[in-house]
């Protein structure tokens, strides 16, 4: 399920800065919302473990 960050202040399904998932956007044209600058897709974060020399 894709997630999107709300960028605009006139989006009715979430406040600016909120993260909404595609389920909430059912019926909306998501690509048009992204094109219009209302939403930005949130990339999945890659978990990366870094062990420093001090921890070893």
């Amino acid at each position, binding site marked *: 399920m894709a997630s999107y960050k709300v960028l605009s202040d*006139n989006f009715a399904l979430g406040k600016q800065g909120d993260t909404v998932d595609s389920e909430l956007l059912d019926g909306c044209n998501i*690509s048009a*919302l992204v094109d*219009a600058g209302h939403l930005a897709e949130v990339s999945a974060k890659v978990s990366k473990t870094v062990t420093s020399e001090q921890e070893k």
Partner: protein
Amino acid sequence: MAQLVLKNAYITVNGVTLSDRSNSVELNYEVESVEVTAFGGNRSFVGGLQNNTTTIEFMQDFAAANVEATIFPLVGTQTTLIIAADGGAFSTTNPKYTVTGTYLASHTPVAGAVGELAMTSLTFTGGTLVKTTTA
């Protein structure tokens, strides 16, 4: 119930609130009539498919995430509209009309004569209309 003057109609297009950029909205809910007249009777009809049309007049705005940015990518696609007579809470006296899967065929980004307000008139056709009285 008193008479109602439209002062604060609620309009969202594709989930975007654009009420403050519109000065006219017309939601036409129609179910096609299918004739079932048989010999020996008078004209008789039953309900067929919904054939809804929504016309909204928008004051054009090219600012980020506003009218033009929201509408332009929708041409040739289906979307969802939500219309209510008032922008307050939805209730039995202020029902919410949701039209899903409605199609936008055209948009006029620039229209008007000298000295006139730049407007765009949008007509959304088709889709399924549902009326609810809660958010």
